[in-house]
């Protein structure tokens, strides 16, 4: 188990990590998700021993990891831009970690060759072993970087934005592949990403970070369905956000009461978050909002409508997703009701 306790890391006056605690169980595939500058890469580098915290503890299976430098931690690190050794062939890149072992425990040449072959087979790139990194595509480099990191039989595998530098199509393929690879080798893995879709699709557990703090930890379903904060709600999945006022348990939009519960949020300016597909359309007068359909687009199974809500002064335009069997026309007056929603106190 990897345990991070109360980690603080400052770059000048900027707190990259602000008292961060995290436990990772063996065999997990964990995503560190957050916008750039949220501290996720710094946390990853501290676990790897490539950066040092100003305060706090890091332990692997109860053993103090900070007592060891990066070279002694047996951590496999896959760099965002791969950091393949450009003057070595693919084979030598993967063999590197085996060749630099102390003589006493170093494998002999035949064993090294066998192990490298095995790893190249694992990442399905055996046929590239005598190429140089500059001759590979981005996706191939990524997989070689992974094979190289696995060569030292790491106790944890850390991946920094593993798909960040790849184009959209390759990225999708590699996600699948990484999941199945993790299933196969079952090494505790942590990867950093700013792409919520990637985190939700690949990881068993997602750690959402913002401004140097962990704001939520949970399964992909958890963080999507029950976001802990307004930030998580808007960062993960697309949301309709409406500025509302909570007054004595009632929710008002532009001075007009909405027919929904305040969910225990105390009085004051708040924000109402609804997923687009959670807005149910009913006949006029039946829901929390009334509005006029302005524009309808259909693609695939979805019908997306722009609805101008008539609330208070001025109009607020929102986009909702409706099933295609519910026919909508510009000019229709509809009633909308949130099937699920969250209200968070405060302006931000």
């Amino acid at each position, binding site marked *: 188990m990897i345990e991070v306790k109360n980690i603080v890391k400052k770059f000048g006056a900027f707190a990259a990590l602000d008292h961060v605690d995290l436990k990772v169980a063996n065999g997990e595939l964990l995503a560190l998700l957050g916008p750039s500058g949220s501290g996720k890469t710094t946390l990853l580098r501290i676990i790897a021993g490539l950066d*040092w915290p*100003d305060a706090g503890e890091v332990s692997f299976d109860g053993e103090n990891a900070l*007592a*060891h*430098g990066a070279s002694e931690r047996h951590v496999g690190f896959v760099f965002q831009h791969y950091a393949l050794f450009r003057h070595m062939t693919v084979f030598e890149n993967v063999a590197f970690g085996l060749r630099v072992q102390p003589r006493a425990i170093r494998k002999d040449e035949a064993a090294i060759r066998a192990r490298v072959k095995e790893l190249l087979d694992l990442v399905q790139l055996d046929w590239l072993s005598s190429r140089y990194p500059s001759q590979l595509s981005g996706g191939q480099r990524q997989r070689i970087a992974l094979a190289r990191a696995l060569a030292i039989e790491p106790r944890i595998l850390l991946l920094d934005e593993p798909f960040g530098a790849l184009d959209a199509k390759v990225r999708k393929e590699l996600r699948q592949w990484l999941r199945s690879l993790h299933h196969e080798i079952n090494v505790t893995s942590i990867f950093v990403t700013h792409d919520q879709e990637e985190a939700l699709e690949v990881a068993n557990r997602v750690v959402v970070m913002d401004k140097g703090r962990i704001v939520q930890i949970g399964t992909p379903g958890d963080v999507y369905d029950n976001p802990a904060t307004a930030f998580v709600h808007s960062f993960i999945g697309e949301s309709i956000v409406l500025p509302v006022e909570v007054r004595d348990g009632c929710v008002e939009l532009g001075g007009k009461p909405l027919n929904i519960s305040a969910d225990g949020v105390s009085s004051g300016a708040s924000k109402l978050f609804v997923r687009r597909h959670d807005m149910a359309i009913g006949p006029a007068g039946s829901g929390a909002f009334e509005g006029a359909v302005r524009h309808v687009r259909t693609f695939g199974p979805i019908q997306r409508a722009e609805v101008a809500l008539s609330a208070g002064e001025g109009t607020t335009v929102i986009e909702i997703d409706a099933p295609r069997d519910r026919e909508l026309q510009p000019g229709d007056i509809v009633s909308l009701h949130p099937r699920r929603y969250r209200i968070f106190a405060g302006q931000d």
Partner: protein
Amino acid sequence: MNNGGAGRRNTLPGFGLTMGLTLTWLSVIILIPLAGLFLKSFELSLDQFWSILTSRRTLNALKISFGLAFAAAIVNLVMGLIIVWALVRYRFPGRRIFDAIVDIPFALPTAVAGVALTALFAEKGWLGAPLAELGIKVAFTPAGIFVAMIFIGIPFVVRTVQPVLIDLDAEIEDAAASLGANRWNTVSRVILPSLVPALLTGFALAFARAVGEYGSVIFIAGNLPNVSEIAPLLIVIRLSEFRYADATAIAVVMLVASFLLIFAVNRLQRWAQTRMPAH
């Protein structure tokens, strides 16, 4: 105490060791010897210092070194720009060879340049003979010093301006042309102003080099006190006369001048960067 705890800084090893070795080596070879020079100059009273510097021979040597170096740097500025323009903008037979040739003054040992220029410009030399017929004497006159200083300074201007002109975005020229500028307007109002920081840097570097130049100058100079005797040569002469104080005083003045020049160059480069950030 902190061993193994939080607060360690560097991922890569060896910072303490390599920095220590670097500072030691730098001190032994550069800083201590240079400090020794300044220390020596403090043994002089201000009056002594002043009278050495204002003696006719010193003053003339400094005037010759700084004055001719300045003039040579001006010539280098103009010729350097023309050469860069030809090398970057035009295609002509032998262009790549001429491009490589620009570095010869950097690579050729100064003593070799000195004897070669002297042989070339001496009264019977390939260039000296025709010039003599025109009544122009170059070798063993201040004009010889001037020629040698031009020789050693030219690569500085060319090599600082060349990359800037190459990197200059061709689109800005198209933009100027599309706005109705004729070629002369484009060159004088768009291109040349972007080259100004590099030109000034090249000028300052050529000037600094020429002021301190010794090897390529002394053969062709004639070395007549007050007429064609450069400051570095006067330092050498004073040393051979065991007049260390005189040598030190002149050296300190030259050293301070070159530090100021380097400082100016650094400021110029910072100015150029803030004015035109690399794209």
